[in-house]
């Protein structure tokens, strides 16, 4: 019994961490229409920044400053914000799909850095013995997990509440206005590029926060925690939950992660170990098909957008006025 509860707490914690990433993506995609194809890169920046700042000093490594947890979290968010700003500043003024390509590129590059810059990242070994907040206060790992789950609930709730507030504040309304009619928003003196960049950086910062929370939950970090498939899983969460809806993003995180975990278990049970790779491939194919079907058949997702956006807003009419 305690085994099941223990697993459920662990599962729910991962869902919340992924849910924070999904909220970040939802701000970028659902509310601003920005295509981030390198989610895993920003998540990794946050995770590594936190690990480097908080892990106990080791002579062979550059980082490992042994700083307090909260400093690690703040530093992780700052580092991710900086990375997002650098990519966004160059590409947000360009075609929408160029941002997709650039973010994809930064994810690839960050993965290479995590693998190759051994003095900073520990290379393929990763970094271990990352302090978990208040771990010493608990007798059992389960006790810690329960406390950390509570912490995650509080942080996720704060993020959700904060997002809902700013999206209803003038800032969020400008964002919506830009998405519906860029020209009109511009005429009102709002720079679409600046607002988009802010939304992009803020969304990525949340991904960095999730990275920091992940390492301080697990206690170590390695490049293999940041496979490109994660980007796709987060996308699945936002699309399935309905983009432009924060509750949908959280629900999507739960649904997609449950399907992913369950199919993983089923495949391990059904497929002989010699064909584990094929089993994994089936898992990915299933989620890919789920997404394509969602896109083709239910473009508004499970919950759907909160309010309808005028559909002709991005109907270009290059042959002159209508």
């Amino acid at each position: 019994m305690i085994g099941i509860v223990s697993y459920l707490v662990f599962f729910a914690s991962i869902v919340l961490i992924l849910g924070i990433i999904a909220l970040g993506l939802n701000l970028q995609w659902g509310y601003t229409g920005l295509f981030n194809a390198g989610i895993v890169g920003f998540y990794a920046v946050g995770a590594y920044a936190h690990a480097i700042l908080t892990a106990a000093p080791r002579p062979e490594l550059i980082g490992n400053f042994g700083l307090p947890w909260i400093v690690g979290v703040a530093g992780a968010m700052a580092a991710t914000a900086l990375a997002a700003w650098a990519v966004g500043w160059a590409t947000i003024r360009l075609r929408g799909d160029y941002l997709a390509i650039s973010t994809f590129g930064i994810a690839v590059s960050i993965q290479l850095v995590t693998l190759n810059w051994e003095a900073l990242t520990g290379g393929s070994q990763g970094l271990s013995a990352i302090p978990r907040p208040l771990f010493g206060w608990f007798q059992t790992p389960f006790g810690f997990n329960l406390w950390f789950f509570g912490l995650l609930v509080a942080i996720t709730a704060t993020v959700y509440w904060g997002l809902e507030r700013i999206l209803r504040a003038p800032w969020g309304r400008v964002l919506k206005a830009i998405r519906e009619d860029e020209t009109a928003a511009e005429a009102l003196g709002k720079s679409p590029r600046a607002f988009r960049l802010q939304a992009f950086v803020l969304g990525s910062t949340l991904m960095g926060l999730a990275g920091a929370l992940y390492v301080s939950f697990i206690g170590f970090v390695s490049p293999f925690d940041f496979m490109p498939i994660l980007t796709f899983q987060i996308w699945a969460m936002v699309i399935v939950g309905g983009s432009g809806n924060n509750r949908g993003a959280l629900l999507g995180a739960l649904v997609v992660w449950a399907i992913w975990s369950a199919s993983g278990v089923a495949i391990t049970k059904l497929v002989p170990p010699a064909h584990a790779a094929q089993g994994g491939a089936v898992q990915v194919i299933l989620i890919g098909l789920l997404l394509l079907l969602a896109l083709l058949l239910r473009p508004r997702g499970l919950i759907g957008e909160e309010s309808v956006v005028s559909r002709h807003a991005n109907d270009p009419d290059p042959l002159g006025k209508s």
Partner: protein
Amino acid sequence: MPELSFLLAQVPQAVADGVLTGAIVALGAIGVSFGLQILRFANFAHSELLTWGAYLALVVVAFAGPGTPIGPLSFGWQLIAAMLLAALLTGGLAFAMDLVIFRRLRAKNANPLSMVFAGFGAALVMRNVVVLLWGPGTYFYTNELQIAVEVLPGVRMLPDQIFILGFTFAVVVLLHLYLRYSRTGMAMRAMAESPALALACGVKVENVVRWTWFLSGALAAMAGVFLGLSPQLHPEMGFNLLLSLFAAAILGGAGSLVGAVVGGLLVGLAENLPILVISPGYKAAMPFLLLMLVLFVRPQGLFGERS
């Protein structure tokens, strides 16, 4: 300074390697460039067409055998035939992809980013179907050993590599003539500039789009076979090249054939020259750095038209 002279001595070989990588990247990037300009979205599934082309040729080779090597090459005419057949099949696959996914989104007047997203999903499915069918391991087209020949002082190349360069050059010249002088080629360029005006001119835009998909797929398959020749096939072979393809297409200027070729060569050089001084582990990040540089300085690319 002995170290510097040692370094300089390696430059010609690195340039040759860069040109070879560049030729393969260029062949793949042409399709990406068409995609960006004629189909109007960044197709993340394009790299999977390279992989599929390579594996489809592998199937043909498995039936026909690689054949008796032609001269110093590692393969016989069977592989060339297999490549052409794979080009047709992969063109058909690209066409089918359009039919099943992208045409439906176009008909719904979907946001171009939905197309990007669909490509993203299609890529994942296609890549993993390769794992499912052929397993995660590697394959070779032939087991023939080859000896590198010295083509210039200090520059050695495998005969297969020289073949790849020559074949790519021929394909690019033919394609250039096609785009320049054929009526469909002109319609493709017209579409690249303004789909709306092409439509108003009575051009059957959907046919041009389908033909563009087919051509992109066929070119990707050739790039994939060449990638498989140098030296092996594996499920992520195309995916690992995706960033290079995008970088080359954007660097050259979306929609420009010459641009894609020059872009491909620059990407190839950017991957091969810096690793003389920095860790080869970062090779794959070079296209990204080059891409960011272009997007900062000249986002329409070297040969692109500012819109």
